[in-house]
């Protein structure tokens, strides 16, 4: 294990801050910073259950398109992805956000 949660984001190409239902403010996801770019093919979104409304197709689609061509991968507790070059593996049930606003099993796309 190299990194989890914010650490996983810090190693990605971009560091996002996001929350679809904050108590204050407009709830727009923002790119906070350039990441360390140790990998490019996946953009992780930790604490997805708490922070993202994955049943909202419009928001999900926007987020997926913003991080394309990387895969927007929601990660909750116990979930993981492993990267080996371009090869992506994940826990069973790994997911990916798609441009049509749906959430698709990660393995179908690899």
């Amino acid at each position, binding site marked *: 294990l190299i990194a989890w*949660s*914010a650490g996983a*984001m810090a190693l990605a190409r971009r560091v996002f*801050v996001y*929350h679809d239902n*904050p*108590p*204050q*403010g407009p709830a727009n996801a923002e790119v*906070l910073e350039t990441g360390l770019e140790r990998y490019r093919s996946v953009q992780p979104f*930790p*604490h997805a259950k*708490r922070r993202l409304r994955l049943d909202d197709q419009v928001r999900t689609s926007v987020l997926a398109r913003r991080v394309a061509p990387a895969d927007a991968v929601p990660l909750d507790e116990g979930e993981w992805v492993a990267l080996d070059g371009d090869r992506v593996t994940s826990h069973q049930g790994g997911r990916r956000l798609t441009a049509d606003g749906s959430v698709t099993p990660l393995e179908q796309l690899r």
Partner: protein
Amino acid sequence: MMTPTVRRLRAAARRGEPALQRFLERHRVPIQAEGLTTFVFVGAADRVDLEHWIYGLPGTQPFDHVPGTNLWHLSVDLPAESRIEYKLGITLDGRRSTILDPLNPRLAHDPFGANSVCSTEGYRTPEWAGPDPESRPGSIEQIEIESAALAGRRTLHVYLPARFRPGRRYPLLVVHDGSDYLRYSSLRNVLDNLITRLEVAPLIVALTDPGQRLKEYAANPRHARHITEEVLPLLADHYPLVEDPGGRGLMGASLGAVASLSTAWMHPGTWGRLMLQSGSFAFTDIGQTRRGPEFEPVVTWMNRFRADPGEPADRVYVSSGVYESLIYENRSLVPMLQRAGMQVLFTEARDGHNWENWRDRMRQGLSYLFPGPLWLTYE
């Protein structure tokens, strides 16, 4: 108003008790249909009334009776996202009793007992006010305080957030009617959840309770002195508090909001954050108040405050239900606070003067006054 649903309800009653029971099993009472809310009572009565506290509507509204049956009903046009509390007034053989709605299991509790609850489309009980097994629970300690200002001994309850560390400094929120907030507004769940979710900063919350509420909370300088010169120093001795007005808040509902605002006004530069819910901010432009003699000290102080508001706090959250008469006073307060240089967030909801209205506003109010690191922290 006879909507199709009400016509079916009446027809079912005319077909007999089994048909009516089947109809009621298929509908949640009060029935929301065709844009109206229909209250239903089934039983022996000479008269049935809806008793509620919606300012602007007659406080008692009679039900229609379907002759030859035990069915009584009343349809009311309640806007979407409304939440109201009510009882039924039943008159039988010249005797009148007030009861909870037997067909509606939803109840709200307050210091006077319980009321039935009705909400319309769009209202949701906030999930952040309920128990969440993923939330880290805080703890509550008890402190006794001998008050010279109030001439008596008082008990404080102090909420410490989960993962409390004596080496850190915490903002302080002093809550009026603290035990009622715990009991009727789920304050402990709210704090545990919002702090765990990083929406509210880890806080120390002092829960105070009044002795003689009507006297102490009615803009009483003795109460203000008790909170500022007795409670605050005691808590600062016991706990690591942020030493800045921006890290000190007062909160209260109804007269508790008056106590909060007046305490901050009487001790400027001490309390930087105020959460004022359905404040009983009665004032007069001329003449006497019509709210009764117990409001006279409030009116006297409010009139002074309106003439010279000063700047009792930096940031203020104000909320009120639109179904309570105090909406007028609370709406009036907001531009005055803003003109005096305070940052104000004002929310009004289609609800009344009750503890669940105050519960439902806490996420917005607490996160405005004591924002947590939600946006930038991923644990």
